[in-house]
């Protein structure tokens, strides 16, 4: 039995957060700091004829105005994002100049005094336009609007043969929208010139410090080791505090180096909505074939993903989409193709779930449509086709107990029983015809999710653990705490391994000068990869402590146990050494090091580029949800009444925190399903703040009932795997399916807002 792992201990950073002591990016201040403000484009696509900064520079208190020509190194960053647009603006959020002033009020005033002359150009504003051959191009250096390296595929079996065998074939198209991550803290950074050498130090709400470090270094024309990035407390990110923060850090760093003064930039909500990444909109064209007994024989799709003006995520997101495109089902013949496209609009990036929520909306709506066609129940068709132990996935991976579990069948049965799914579903169908305009509906969905990055990229992570002379332990991960609870889970892993109390552990914020490049904190890899790195570092230190203790106790090292703050020989447990005694002897008696770096490398997953087949992910997590709603068919208003969900996550390092992740994911799923949409018209962003971009409040959220399934999964630390993103992706299809159950109307486009529910289409286009 574990002492600390698998227990719902309090978060180690919660005291600072309930007392208002935790400092977020906007709370950081530095003597003599300047305030920077970006001047944004006025058009979605235009030639820049002239930028006149004289008037702004003349304002008292303005120290500097920079444009693209002031960037000392490379103006173009990862994903073609320009620090500042040069010659041409490609979307409405492009920055053209940055002013730096003695106060934020002066900076705001000066930004309005920068005069930019444009020549407006026609643009490509949606997927249909972008797809057309010989269409206007967003980037002239490529031949069309297809984003480089963004075409991903999966080929399994022979779909033509499969569709010949099929007795029922359906073809459907599903569409999803741009949505913002809508973290409550807008982005903030402060960049300090390094006081001791040429370089900069960047603090702020930064999800991916290593990406920022590398990009800012090239912008400044410096080496990577001349840029140091330290995260502040982060007020939520969900994938979003990445590109926008990279732009802010680069702009401020240019000014900091030129002026020798610290530079602070805090986005307003409007700027955050304008400039930060969004969830990619998908147009998913599906064809599915099945036998009359419900067994699915073939799935084929072509999916188009709106990337926006610049993009550094579609090539990764589309890979995940290609693997998950046929859902958690055993299907002999699969052909998937996912393409990303540039448009002169706000751009797609990472948002919790990455490309899965879009794909799961499509596939889990589709399977309900197929069930309807076959006169089967949604439960029955899923039970018939879901991945079971011993099955081969579309990628060719085999699910085996003790290796990759396949618990969906049991989970689907249990959730349907618990929610009384079948009898409610039948009852609500009968009630569709009644006079009461309030209709009830119930909907089911299920999913699987590849844990970590898998074949998407290198999945390595680092951790440092240092024990000091007083027995205190400093842990620092190369991955970032954003509120998800990672640092608490990491602390639990270290305390469990060393057999000490959590009170000894302090967590250092991620600092690129301390921990090695761990890549990005994405793909629900904080526990799987980051936790394994902690486990490796802590185990290394335990070895060193035990080495010394075996000499002190004169016993064989194999017989030693660390538990409850003591190290002792299990065959002579009466003679115990305290943890501190052994630490002191190591450090002061013997001069040993009690600092270790953990480096976890799961090894590259091997996939064939021609077929997409191979070992896509080391393991998978699973989920299933039932949504219950009430819809007013006279107004189109949906009330979500209850969400019941179950998730298989290996082992919960902290069950309370794991549940928190699911509750939050469900909230974002509800928003995605029925409320949220970043609307653009001809490239202009129409949704500017929270009065327009509505997100769920406490009054919109239903009661949630979440069950965690545990399993033996050998990949992660103590059997733990991915948690963070599973919660969100089940909700939109479960609600769309529930809406169908209530009304008999199938809506294939998100969000399920009043107009779509009432009229079947939106009026806002």
């Amino acid at each position, binding site marked *: 039995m574990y002492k600390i792992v698998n227990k719902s201990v309090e978060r180690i950073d919660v005291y600072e957060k309930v007392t208002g002591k935790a400092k977020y990016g906007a709370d950081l201040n530095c003597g003599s700091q300047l305030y920077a403000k970006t001047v944004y484009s006025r058009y979605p696509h235009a030639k820049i004829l002239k930028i006149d900064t004289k008037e702004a520079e003349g304002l008292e208190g303005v120290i500097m105005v920079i444009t693209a020509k002031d960037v000392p190194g490379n103006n173009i960053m990862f994903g073609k994002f320009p620090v500042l647009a040069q010659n041409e603006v490609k979307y409405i959020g492009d920055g053209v100049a940055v002013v730096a002033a003695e106060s934020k009020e002066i900076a705001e005033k000066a930004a309005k005094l920068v005069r930019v002359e444009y020549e407006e150009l026609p643009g490509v504003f949606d997927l249909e336009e972008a797809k057309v051959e010989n269409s206007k191009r967003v980037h002239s250096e490529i031949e069309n609007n297809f984003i480089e390296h963004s075409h991903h595929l999966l080929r399994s079996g022979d779909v033509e043969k499969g569709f010949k065998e099929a007795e029922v074939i359906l073809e459907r198209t599903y569409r999803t929208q741009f949505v913002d991550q*809508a973290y409550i*803290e807008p982005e903030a950074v402060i960049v300090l010139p390094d006081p001791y050498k040429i370089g900069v130090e960047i603090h702020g709400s930064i999800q991916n410090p290593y990406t920022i470090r590398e990009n800012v270094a090239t912008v400044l024309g410096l080496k990577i080791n001349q840029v140091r990035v330290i995260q502040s407390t982060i007020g939520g990110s969900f994938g979003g505090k990445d590109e926008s923060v990279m732009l802010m850090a680069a702009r401020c760093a240019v000014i900091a180096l030129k002026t020798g003064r610290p530079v602070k930039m805090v986005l307003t909500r409007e700027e955050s909505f304008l400039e930060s990444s969004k969830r990619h909109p998908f147009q998913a064209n599906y064809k599915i074939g099945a036998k009359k007994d419900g067994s699915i024989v073939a799935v084929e799709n072509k999916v188009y993903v709106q990337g926006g003006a610049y993009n550094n995520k579609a090539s990764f997101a589309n890979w995940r989409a290609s693997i998950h495109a046929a859902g958690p089902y055993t299907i002999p013949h699969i052909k998937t193709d996912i393409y990303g496209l540039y448009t002169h609009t706000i751009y797609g990036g990472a948002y919790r779930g990455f490309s899965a929520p879009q794909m799961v909306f499509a596939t889990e709506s589709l399977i309900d449509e197929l069930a309807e066609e076959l006169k089967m129940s949604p439960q029955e068709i899923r039970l018939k086709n879901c991945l079971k132990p011993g099955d081969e996935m579309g990628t060719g991976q085999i699910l085996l107990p003790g290796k990759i579990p396949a618990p969906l069948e049991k989970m689907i049965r249990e959730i349907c029983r618990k929610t009384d799914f079948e009898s409610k579903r039948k009852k609500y169908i009968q009630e569709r015809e009644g006079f009461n305009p309030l209709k009830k509906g119930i909907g089911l969905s299920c999913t699987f999710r590849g844990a970590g990055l898998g074949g998407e990229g290198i999945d390595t992570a680092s951790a440092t653990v240092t024990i000091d002379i007083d027995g205190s332990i400093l842990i620092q991960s190369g991955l970032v705490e954003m509120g998800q609870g990672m640092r608490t889970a990491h602390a639990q892993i270290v305390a469990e391994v060393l057999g000490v109390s959590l009170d000894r552990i302090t967590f250092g914020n991620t600092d690129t000068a301390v921990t090695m490049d761990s890549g990005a904190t994405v793909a629900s890899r904080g526990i799987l990869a980051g936790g394994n790195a902690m486990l490796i570092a802590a185990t290394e230190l335990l070895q060193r402590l035990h080495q010394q203790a075996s000499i002190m106790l004169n016993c064989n090292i194999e017989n030693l146990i660390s538990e409850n703050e003591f190290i002792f020989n299990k065959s002579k447990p009466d003679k115990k050494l305290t943890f501190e005694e052994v630490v002191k002897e190591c450090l002061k008696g013997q001069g040993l090091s009690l600092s270790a770096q953990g480096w976890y490398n799961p090894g590259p997953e091997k996939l064939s580029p021609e077929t997409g087949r191979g070992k896509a992910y080391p393991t998978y997590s699973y989920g299933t949800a039932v949504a219950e709603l009430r819809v007013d068919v006279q107004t189109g208003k949906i009330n979500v009444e209850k969400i019941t969900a179950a998730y298989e996550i290996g082992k919960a390092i902290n069950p309370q925190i794991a*549940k928190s992740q699911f*509750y939050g994911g469900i*909230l974002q799923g509800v928003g995605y399903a029925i409320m949220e949409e970043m609307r653009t018209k001809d490239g202009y962003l129409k949704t500017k703040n929270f009065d327009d971009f509505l997100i769920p*409040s406490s009054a919109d959220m239903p009661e949630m009932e979440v069950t965690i399934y545990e399993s033996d999964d050998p990949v992660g630390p103590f059997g733990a795997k991915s948690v963070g993103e599973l919660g969100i992706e089940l909700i939109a299809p479960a609600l769309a399916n529930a809406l169908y159950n209530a009304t008999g109307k199938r809506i294939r486009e998100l969000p399920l807002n009043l107009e779509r529910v009432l009229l079947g289409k939106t009026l806002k286009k």
Partner: protein
Amino acid sequence: MVTKKIELNIKVNNKDYKLLVSPNKRLLDVLREDLGLNGVKEGCGIGECGACTIVMNGKNICSCMVLAGQAEGAEIITIEGLTGPEGELHPLQEAFMETGAVQCGFCTPGMILSSLVLLRNNPSPTKEEIRAAISGNFCRCTGYQQIIEAVQLAAEKMRKGGVKVNG
């Protein structure tokens, strides 16, 4: 172009202040910049998200929607004022810690202060009353479930006569 500053007398967290501020400065900025109370957060600037919630004259309000001049003579509580003189935590703070009601923490100060006003007026709120009372405070992390549990737990702690700090 310099606006004439006004004298502002306010009581914040039981301490009296006499400040010289621009009359059109937002109360949010007075608290953050002039008094260094960084527990007051800014999330949207238009009174929608509730991150800047404070208690002013017994009511929970968005401090981004109040100008300094409008706060003359006001009595204000921010999250920094909830902790007792010896650092003892308010039952709401304890409850938020115990139930897992905090993730990123950015909405937490405002959420706790809206809950404080609720519990002062209604010591035994139902779940629905709690939902209504915090509906002006957005949280993107928690789905509100553990926050509602926290407010219920705090109410219970306060009813049982637990430590009463500024409550």
